[in-house]
């Protein structure tokens, strides 16, 4: 019984918990709201662990399946399940939320309950996205997430938050609505069913496939984000509070890539192959051009935001070269980027809380005052640059390996990221952390406190574990990735 509803528990525990936190009311009860949120976040994380321990790595079938009739008039079901790919993303979600709650402990002073509740509700919705097997259920979770994110950026964000949050909301909504139309079209093609697995088996002509592919591309490319629809991301990241940036970078961007994995590739194999040149081209532009853009940023958050776009370019590249290394590398990169970019945003948050500036030029010589923090940030900067031994290396290496098999030039262009990534990350690190203390304020900095060391240690452990011993992660996804490639290799065109 417990195993049968493990996914529902993982989804609804944080949502119901978030509503309970909301009920603690105004800021007089802030300490209660904080403790309650932490409790719920940890409980939700523990609730996702049985998914990991009970997972069978030898089958590509969906596991922990729950299937209930919901809206019979349109054959919409409450249908959940995870495979090896989505399981990792579910775990990443519940893990990150705990960190976000800890990181906001002292930093958020106003409307604490609403802030915490928004993140907990988001956690439930994101797990819903990763485990929904009914297209409309997926869409509901996918879109519902915009509401808390809109509020998070708009209420606790920086000076230009209103512009950023409107841009974020409208961009993502615009991308998503055409996906909805595509879902409804597929519903009729699949004999009136919104079952995603039934979509996988639908036969579709080339023109249909290409049109549906483009509709999906709108939705997923905006979320990933791919060049040239990435412009919302730097704005949203810069203006969002630290926790918002972490969730955006670590999780929301993954939803776009997950969409390609779950929908575009298996449902539209022929269009995917036909338009692979477009996807690979856009990915390479993201890797090379956005890498160069990141180099010249003066705002740390913006720099990490651009670096995220470049790293997500790796993910989409890996997906559209159609071999096992590429896809596995893409999934590893997704998880790894979740840890690394989350960690870097938290590091910037640590500095921002002290000096209230994100400008690189306002820092310098931080290492003298904050040696412990500097060493943590060193590790994450290295991981971002793809240093062997960190999680960043595994994903990038696998994708480049896959790209070599597809076309040497892809690999060469993708390989430039190792140079650019190292350049922009380490240059920023050097300017912020090393050198002489140029500003009086920097001289007054205090090193990371226990709370900050706690979340940085957790992330450092994850980054190193994935870098040094990636097999447990690879084992979980291996069979599912093989199955995905099998689906992608079979043409759906009628002979």
């Amino acid at each position, binding site marked *: 019984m417990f195993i049968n509803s493990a996914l529902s528990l993982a989804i609804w525990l944080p949502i119901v918990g978030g509503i309970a936190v909301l009920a603690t009311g105004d800021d007089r009860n802030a300490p209660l709201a904080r403790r309650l949120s932490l409790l719920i976040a940890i409980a939700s994380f523990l609730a996702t662990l049985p998914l990991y321990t009970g997972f069978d790595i030898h089958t590509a079938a969906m596991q922990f399946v729950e299937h209930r009739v919901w809206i019979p008039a349109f054959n919409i079901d409450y249908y959940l399940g995870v495979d090896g790919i989505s399981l990792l993303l579910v775990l990443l979600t519940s893990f990150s939320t705990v960190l976000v709650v800890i990181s906001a402990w002292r930093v958020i002073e106003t409307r604490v309950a609403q802030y915490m509740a928004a993140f907990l509700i988001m956690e439930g919705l994101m797990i819903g996205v990763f485990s929904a097997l009914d297209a409309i259920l997926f869409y509901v979770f996918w879109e*519902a997430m915009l509401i808390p994110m809109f509020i998070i950026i708009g209420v606790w964000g920086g000076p230009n938050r209103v512009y950023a949050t409107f841009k974020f909301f409208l961009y993502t909504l615009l991308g998503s609505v055409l996906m909805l139309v595509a879902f409804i079209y597929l519903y009729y093609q699949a004999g009136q069913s919104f079952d995603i697995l039934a979509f996988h088996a639908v036969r579709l002509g080339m023109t249909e496939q290409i049109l549906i592919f483009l509709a999906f591309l709108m939705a997923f490319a905006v979320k990933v984000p791919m060049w040239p629809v990435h412009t919302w991301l730097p704005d949203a990241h810069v203006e969002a509070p630290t926790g918002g940036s972490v969730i955006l970078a670590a999780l929301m961007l993954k939803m776009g890539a997950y969409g390609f994995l779950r929908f575009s590739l298996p449902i539209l194999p022929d269009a995917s192959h036909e338009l692979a040149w477009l996807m690979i081209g856009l990915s390479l532009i993201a890797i090379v051009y956005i890498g160069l853009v990141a180099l010249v940023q003066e705002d740390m958050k913006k720099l990490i935001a651009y670096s995220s776009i470049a790293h997500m370019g790796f993910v989409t590249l890996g997906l559209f070269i159609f071999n096992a290394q590429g896809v596995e590398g893409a999934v590893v990169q997704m998880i790894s980027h979740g840890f690394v970019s989350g960690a870097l945003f938290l590091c910037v948050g640590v500095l921002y809380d002290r000096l209230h500036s994100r400008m690189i030029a306002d820092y310098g010589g931080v290492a003298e005052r904050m040696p412990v923090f500097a060493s943590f940030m060193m590790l994450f900067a290295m991981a971002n640059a793809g240093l062997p031994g960190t999680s960043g290396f595994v994903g990038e290496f696998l994708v480049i390996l896959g790209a070599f098999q597809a076309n040497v030039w892809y690999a060469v262009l993708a390989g430039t990221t190792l140079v650019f990534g190292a350049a922009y990350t380490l240059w920023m690190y050097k300017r912020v952390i090393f050198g002489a203390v140029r500003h009086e304020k920097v001289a007054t900095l205090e090193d990371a406190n226990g709370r900050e060391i706690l979340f940085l240690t957790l992330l450092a452990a994850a980054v190193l574990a994935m870098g040094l011993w990636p097999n447990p992660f690879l084992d979980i996804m291996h069979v599912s990735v093989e199955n995905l490639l099998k689906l992608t290799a079979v043409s759906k065109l009628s002979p």
Partner: protein
Amino acid sequence: MNPILTELAPLFPEIFVLAMACAILLIDLSLSQERRHVSFGLALLTLAGAAALTLSDHSGAARSVFHGMFLDDLMSDVLKLGIYALTFTVFVYSRAYLAARGMYRGEYFVLGLFGVLGMMVMASAGHLLVLYLGLELLSLSLYAMVAFQRDSYPATEAAMKYFVLGALASGMLLYGMSMLYGVTGSLDIAAVRQAVTGVSAANNVVLIFGLVFVLVGLAFKLGAVPFHMWIPDVYHGAPTSVTLYIATAPKLAAFAMVLRLLVGGLQDLAVAWQDMLIIMAILSMAVGNVIAIAQTNLKRMLAYSAISHMGFFLLGILSAGANGYGSALFYILVYAVMSLGAFGMVLLLSRAGHEAEQLDDFRGLNQRSPWYAFLMLLLMFSMAGVPPTAGFYAKLAVIQSVVQVDLVWLAAVAVLFSVIGAFYYLRVVKLMYFDAPADTNAIQSGLDMRALLTVNALALVAVTPWLGAFLDLCSRAILTLA
């Protein structure tokens, strides 16, 4: 049972409402202003009683009495129950507002009940003249209600516009009906249906003209572009409590009118009216959503939003199939509930000497009252069609019915306009959550209103597990027609 009583049984709710409205009118004469709540209470009792009669009477099967002039089917029952519930809530929301403005008089409730009677007749009409009778009873009550605040300049102007344009629309409708009579030789809707079966519309100029005039009349009443001009002025000029009434229950009556005429009577001309509705739907969604962005007055903004919602509603009708009509019914029910909540929120924030109808009045609502800000957030996201609110499922239903008839391009156009629409709903959320309050007065309102408004807004999310049952009810309700 006595044969006359058997014939009359389906009309008991109408007879009851009529009798009670007259009784309240008389009783109210003898009441002093302090005891006005007696009329208010009686009006609410009337609606509750009518609901009980409608529920108890339903035998399951569709019936037609008075030689097919009056129909009692599942659709009329669903619509009537919706009308009672909406009007009940409208009365409760309006009480404090009316009292603060010296409009707390029995006539308001009596006119409201006569309007309800008109809507009930429309929902059950099986004859063109009965339909017209119901429509005029409703319209005349509404004209009077708009002008209820006699010394208000905008309200009188709105009433005048409403009356002139409403009369024009009624004229169009009647003219169309007379042409249908000329072609078919009957005013009975079922007989019209039989007469037009097999008639090729393209070759029958009079029939096409009749159809066009009927459609124009319907479009006027629905407020679909290009016959929407009265909507913003009337919504804006009328006292908010009256706007609330106009924007909710009459939409259900308009649905009944569209279904009885286009589907019940002229289903066989669907090919002819489908194209006209496509144009009106696209224009409504475009004009409504784009012009709403420029509004600074919330009532006016909601008026343009109503126009765009009518465009979406028409998507369901123009799909011309059982699935589409059921979706349209679901859409209009959800829309009426959202509209009820949104105007209810304007009433909640208004107080003596202050109309909270500017967008700026919602500034910083989250700091004044997080709970009502949250409810308004739900209402706005529901209107924008963002899940998990009912507004999303309503849009899903109509878009799905459009895709079913292979109008995928129309579905794409519709969703793109809904993105444009999302902007102005988001702006309200932005004002409530991101800005500091301009008005720091405490919100004053009765417990009844607070409770009902909470139920009203939360229903949009709480309905989620029961959506299946609701959609099923909607698709069964239109089966006797489609």
